[in-house]
């Protein structure tokens, strides 16, 4: 649920109710609070508050009022809960109400802490001390202002009568308990990491859309309907979160139902995405999702890695002869390639959107009808509702433990990513790929190892371009695809194959040495398992590998071998790099006429090149 929707709705409703409570006749009855020095009016007890609210939802709603900060407790001020005994509360002044438009500034917090420091004569609580030091570091340039303004506010407060001063201090303190909660307490404001806006989500605007949206999601709103087994914010029992972890094996029924709402929902849920990925793998169109994910990675990644990532994505998905070539229309491709000359974070947006819409219109529908999805739906669980007694609730509250550190979570994510990358299945056929003699070979693990291929797999893994076994193995399959890529290495005198060999030579281009690029420091990503024995002489003879016949481009053969593995191979220095954009379909004809060059290399179009006529 987009946060804004439920928040505003409930903020406004809360305000309305609080205002109604002020009515001297029908509102909440208040009593004076007796302190040692004075008496302050307008203290209310929850009992009277609940009497005033008069519903079974009262307790929950009352908790919400306190948690949001419309009412604050006078004793035990750090725990924003309602206690239906004689503990006293008071209404918060509207200035401190948590209305959405007013930002909660760190500057204000710094001033507040400085004031508190003055009042408490240097003794701040630990978390306050930490915040203070952190703010001092990050807002150092305005520190004079902060200190002086704190002093001024402190002095201005002294002008007030003592009871009013006490009230104001309590108000301010309560405000900051809501917005900067002490450790170990929950916060209704929920400022956590998940608050960031995902650019892929669609903002809901327009009345009918809103109505439709509400109707769709109303059963999934924990405010409107009980969430099963229980809402952890209310019962302090974290089963709900455990069951809904990002990569849990068996999802809950509600979660699976949400995947059916829209494609965006499916993708944004990691478990859903995994399921979808599995489905696509079976359909041999996994490259779309992989491309989309790499684009996301580019968009959200650090600036330092952007260039590399863009290059890698281009080489893997977009270039002609790429191992996981995606099918986007010519115009988008043109725009993207042009943009890649000066890569930036959003350079792949057009292509990503295209692929997203493709998946949404095409694969998503089929996924919904697929056996994968049906299986998942069948296995999904629906947990029983918890029924906790009051004592159990207190026990739960006492047993609250912090969750896994985000550092550990991140490590786990990275491990999982690496594991997935190692298992990547390059199954995309591209009629432009052709094996190249002396260059290394990309590989994935095939789903359907053919009889001849599998025994040679481990063999291949270690002596990549060993000619005969490979050519034999690959010859025997109808649509084998080879992609050759070189890695950095000193140029060795590999006897480069001259031109295409073998019977059905296709004039297609293929991925060639990236040596020049790699020398410039663009390291291949760990997306593909890289095994790197150096293959010397064997490389030369791999020219006998049969290239793909262009007559069988789009078959999705049941028996396929997609055996690519990346091996570092030395490339002769004569390997050329030709600018892709200066080539077009007609260039294929020239390939043969180049006198056996054969070795055209995929380069990123933004690299500047010296055109040479190279030998393979």
């Amino acid at each position, binding site marked *: 649920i987009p946060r804004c929707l439920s928040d505003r709705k409930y903020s406004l409703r809360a*305000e309305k109710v*609080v*205002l109604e409570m*002020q*009515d*001297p006749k029908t509102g909440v009855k*208040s009593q004076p*609070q007796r302190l040692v020095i004075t008496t*302050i*009016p*307008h*203290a209310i007890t929850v009992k009277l508050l609940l009497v005033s609210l008069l519903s079974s939802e009262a307790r929950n709603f009352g908790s919400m009022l306190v948690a949001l900060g419309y009412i604050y407790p006078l004793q035990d001020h750090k725990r924003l809960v309602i206690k239906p005994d004689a503990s006293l509360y*008071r*209404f*918060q*002044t*509207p*200035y*401190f109400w948590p*209305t959405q*438009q*007013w*930002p909660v*500034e760190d*500057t*204000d917090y710094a001033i507040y802490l*400085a*004031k508190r*420091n*003055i*009042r408490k*004569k*240097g003794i701040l609580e630990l978390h306050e001390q930490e915040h203070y030091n952190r703010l*001092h570091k990050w807002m*150092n*340039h*305005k*520190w*004079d*202002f*902060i*200190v*002086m*303004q*704190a*002093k*001024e*506010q402190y*002095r*201005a*407060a002294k*002008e*007030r*009568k003592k*009871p*009013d001063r006490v*009230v*104001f201090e309590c*108000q301010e303190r309560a405000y900051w308990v809501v917005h900067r909660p002490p450790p170990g307490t929950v916060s209704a404001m929920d400022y956590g990491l998940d608050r960031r806006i995902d650019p892929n989500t669609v903002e809901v605007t327009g009345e009918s859309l809103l109505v439709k949206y509400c109707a769709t999601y109303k059963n999934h709103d924990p405010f409107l309907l009980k969430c099963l087994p229980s809402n952890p914010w209310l019962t302090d029992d974290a089963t709900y979160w455990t069951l809904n972890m990002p990569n849990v094996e068996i999802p809950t029924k509600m979660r699976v139902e949400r995947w059916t709402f829209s494609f965006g929902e499916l993708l944004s849920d990691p478990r859903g995405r995994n399921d979808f990925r599995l489905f696509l793998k079976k359909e041999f169109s996994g490259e779309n999702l992989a491309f989309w994910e790499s684009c996301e990675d580019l968009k959200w990644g650090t600036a330092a890695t952007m260039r590399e990532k863009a290059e890698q994505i281009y080489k893997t998905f977009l270039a002609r002869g790429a191992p996981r070539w995606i099918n986007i229309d010519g115009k988008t491709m043109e725009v993207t390639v042009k943009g890649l000359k000066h890569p930036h974070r959003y350079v792949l947006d057009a292509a990503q959107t295209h692929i997203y819409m493709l998946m949404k219109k095409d694969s998503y529908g089929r996924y919904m009808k697929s056996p994968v999805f049906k299986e998942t739906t069948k296995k999904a669980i629906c947990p029983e509702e918890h029924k906790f007694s009051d004592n159990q609730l207190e026990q739960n509250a006492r047993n609250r433990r912090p969750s896994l550190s985000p550092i550990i979570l991140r490590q786990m994510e990275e491990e999982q990513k690496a594991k997935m990358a190692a298992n990547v299945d390059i199954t995309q056929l591209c009629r432009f790929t052709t094996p190249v003699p002396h260059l290394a070979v990309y590989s994935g693990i095939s789903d359907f190892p053919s009889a001849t291929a599998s025994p040679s797999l481990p063999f291949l893994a270690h002596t990549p371009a060993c000619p005969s076994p490979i050519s034999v193995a690959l010859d025997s399959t109808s649509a084998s695809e080879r992609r050759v890529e070189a890695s950095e290495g000193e140029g060795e005198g590999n006897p480069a194959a001259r031109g295409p060999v073998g019977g059905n030579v296709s004039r297609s281009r293929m991925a060639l040495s990236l040596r020049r690029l790699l020398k410039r420091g663009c390291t291949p990503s760990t997306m593909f398992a890289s095994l790197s024995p150096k293959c010397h002489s064997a490389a030369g003879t791999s020219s006998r590998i049969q290239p793909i016949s262009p007559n069988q481009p789009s078959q999705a053969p049941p028996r396929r071998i997609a055996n690519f593995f990346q091996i570092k191979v030395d490339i002769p220095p004569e390997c050329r790099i030709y600018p892709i954009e200066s080539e077009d379909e007609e260039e294929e004809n020239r390939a043969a006429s180049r006198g056996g060059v054969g070795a055209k290399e995929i380069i990123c179009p933004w690299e500047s090149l010296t055109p040479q006529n190279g030998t393979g």
Partner: protein
Amino acid sequence: IPGPLCYSLLLLVVACYRHLASCVGGCTDSLQLRDELRQTREKAQKLAMAICQHLTLHLRDKSLPEEQRKEMELLWVAFSSSLELLHLDMCKVFNMSDIFSLANTDALVQTGLQGSEVAARALSLPDLNQTQSPTLPAGLESQERSTLEQEIGQIDHMIDDMEMKVNVLRWMVEPHGPQYADPLSSTDSASLAVFSVDEEQPGHQPLCQRNKFCAVLFLFAVVLVAGFISVSMVLFSGVCF
């Protein structure tokens, strides 16, 4: 120089405005409170205007010596922060006066306040060049509202203007002051000391340095006289006996 002096006054006024703003919508909300808000606001704006002009003038002067420039930049950062604070408070008051109309006092939130004089401090400050405006309430709330809206726009404009005209690199500014506000000092820390006002003398004059000097001199004289008397007493008693 009116600039630096104005700044500490501005801080004072902004602090008072915040205290007043925190009462809006509560049970102490009244025409008087709204009026005090208005006056405080106007005062703040006058001060802000003066400081803004002063700073902009100096910071655009390329021939300013380095040390002075650093001081000015420090003041600039502090001033823009105060402006932002004031702007935020004004926006809050604007929004709240929408919800809480004084016509319906039943809906005012019972916050436990009993009302006290917060504004006296801000409003009793000497005006720079103008006389105190009359304390009669402005009248219609809608008029007040549109004035407030206008003034918010003005402050907004001022902030934008400042950003446009003067390029101060905030992260290069280093404050002089301590990390913690010293609870025991009655005068402000050395940081913007030139710009600070002593709390005990609300009617502070630029001549306070002279006053201090006179006071020291006077004390010295008193000590001298006392010493003289005691010495002479000793001598005379010596003579007598």
